[in-house]
């Protein structure tokens, strides 16, 4: 029977651990464990192979060079159901370009229009947002020299993280010609908070997002029906690879076994990456 595949588009800015995730996912597939199976061997896995070699030797993956930013498609079976994973650019540089240049290339447009689900990889950085008038009194802050005041009035180059991600979602919606008159049920939206182990939080993923990027969550809740919106946590690596003990675990064991997702409802850590695609 020719069944239509569930098409998942995975998008993330640079440094949101997409390559690590892919490498771990690919290892799961090759080991043949769990409910995910490869339907077709992907044409190009160069970036993953390099990342897998590094992980196998207990090293973190390196950032993907911009030159390798090409589309990767994985045709899978999840518990017998076809599943297409599409990474338009696993380095993430194009995502930055989309936000800044406000236009999408032809491949992006097609994938954006045809996908059933959007997975947005988000890294909540460990550094705090700079202070503003809501967190610090102006009296406590020295006045900037006039020159810098002039600069700040000029071209705006640094965006707020929530603003960037909201604009990215608005751009995707516009390209897909989806209006927001009614909250959306399709494509489903999953906001995936990556490098979860580094956040050191006991919160559920949605609470963590509400604490750090509340406007993004408010935007998503306004425009997607509750059944079509989920906030997940993901640790593609499981822990940092900066101690000999942790590196040993990766060198002696199976790296992909340490990857885990954090479920939206109960905040449970589950070592099964396939849950993200249910």
């Amino acid at each position: 029977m020719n069944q239509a595949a569930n098409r998942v588009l995975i998008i993330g800015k640079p440094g949101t651990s997409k390559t690590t995730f892919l490498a771990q996912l690919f290892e799961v597939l090759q080991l043949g464990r769990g409910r995910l199976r490869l339907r077709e061997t992907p044409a190009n896995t160069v970036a993953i192979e390099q990342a897998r070699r590094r992980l196998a030797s207990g090293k973190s993956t390196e950032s993907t060079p911009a030159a390798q930013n090409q589309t990767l498609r994985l045709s899978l079976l999840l518990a017998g159901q076809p599943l297409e994973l599409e990474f338009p650019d696993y380095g993430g540089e194009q995502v930055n370009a989309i936000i800044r240049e406000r236009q999408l290339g032809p491949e992006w447009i097609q994938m954006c229009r045809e996908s059933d689900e959007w997975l947005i990889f988000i890294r909540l950085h460990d550094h705090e947002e700079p202070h503003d008038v809501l967190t610090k009194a102006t009296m406590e802050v020295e006045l900037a020299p006039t020159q810098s005041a002039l600069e700040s009035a000029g071209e705006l180059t640094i965006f707020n993280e929530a603003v960037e991600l909201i604009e990215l979602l608005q751009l995707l919606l516009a390209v897909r010609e989806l209006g927001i008159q009614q909250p959306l049920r399709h494509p489903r939206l999953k906001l995936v908070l990556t490098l979860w182990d580094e956040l050191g939080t006991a919160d559920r993923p949605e609470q963590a997002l509400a604490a750090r990027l509340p406007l993004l969550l408010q935007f998503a809740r306004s425009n997607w029906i509750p059944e079509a919106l989920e906030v997940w946590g993901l640790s593609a690596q499981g822990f940092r690879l900066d101690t000999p003990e942790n590196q040993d675990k990766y060198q002696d064991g199976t790296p992909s076994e340490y990857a885990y997702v954090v479920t939206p409802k109960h905040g449970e850590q589950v070592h099964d990456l396939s849950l993200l695609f249910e």
Partner: protein
Amino acid sequence: MPTGRCTNSACVAAKTGLCFDNLTLEKCPRWVATEMAQAKSAGPRKAPVTASKRPRAGAIQGVDWTGDALHLPDLELVSRRSSPMLLATVGEAAAGKSSFLGMLHTLLLRGHCLRDHTFAGSLTLLGWEKLALALRFPKGQATDQPPTPADPDYYRLLHWALRRPDDGSLLDVLFPDAAGEVFSQWAVDEQDINAENVRWIYRHADAFFFFVDCEALAEQRGAAVAPLADLASRLAQGLRGRPVLVVWSKADRLSDVREGVRERMVRQLTLVFGDAPQLYISKELDAQPDPKQLANLQAVDDVLARLAQWRPTVPELDAIGHRTDLFLRYRGR
């Protein structure tokens, strides 16, 4: 223009040809094309107008908005979806109008919410960011809000799409921002040749925030009252019932305003606006959380709530069954 009707009662596409949700009408799931329209578009004489505008497959596709504040020609981006609410700040130069707008964005980014609406998007995120920049301390240093250019031709419109969780409806809100100097000129001479932007804002705004600058009252005392009273009178002249909210800005300086000056100001405002509600707002942190900072969002809440009450409700028609007269039973179908 395609002929038909939209099943969304709020959509005016049947008259304008522009979809409530920015879609090409053929793609809108709520658009019902009439047979005549379908026949026309399928006919050999003329291809549908929208077809030629659609990007070719394989082309790079951009979007209609830049993220910067809107200007009048851009209004169609919003007005084709809905009739936006125009909430106008009115005040003299340096009264804190731009800081008020910047505070709205800053408060939302920090997780504070409107009372009856949720944030559903904005076509001017970059514009909001620019306004909020002076309220951030990126290198531990503060910068002053750059003054809105006093050029009489200058104005900008900031946009929010808001959703009412109660009924799921979408509301577009625009905040026009123009230089305080131009408002002052308009107060003195309604027909001032340089006040065209302010006259446009005044004609089209649905509600107003009238700014009383506490710092000016503290420093210039009585001299600050008269020009503000002039501006208030000008605003009150042709209100036609549109709501006004009196906003005491820079309220962290309120304690520095002499009692006599404050009383005189209140008297003038009461004379002009009657019992218009008043709010005290500030961008300065005084307590955590600071009610005067939160009041910036509350100002929008209050005005939207009053607008919702003020809008006339559609009268209910009698049940058709009671009438025997065919003319009275006609419902346009």
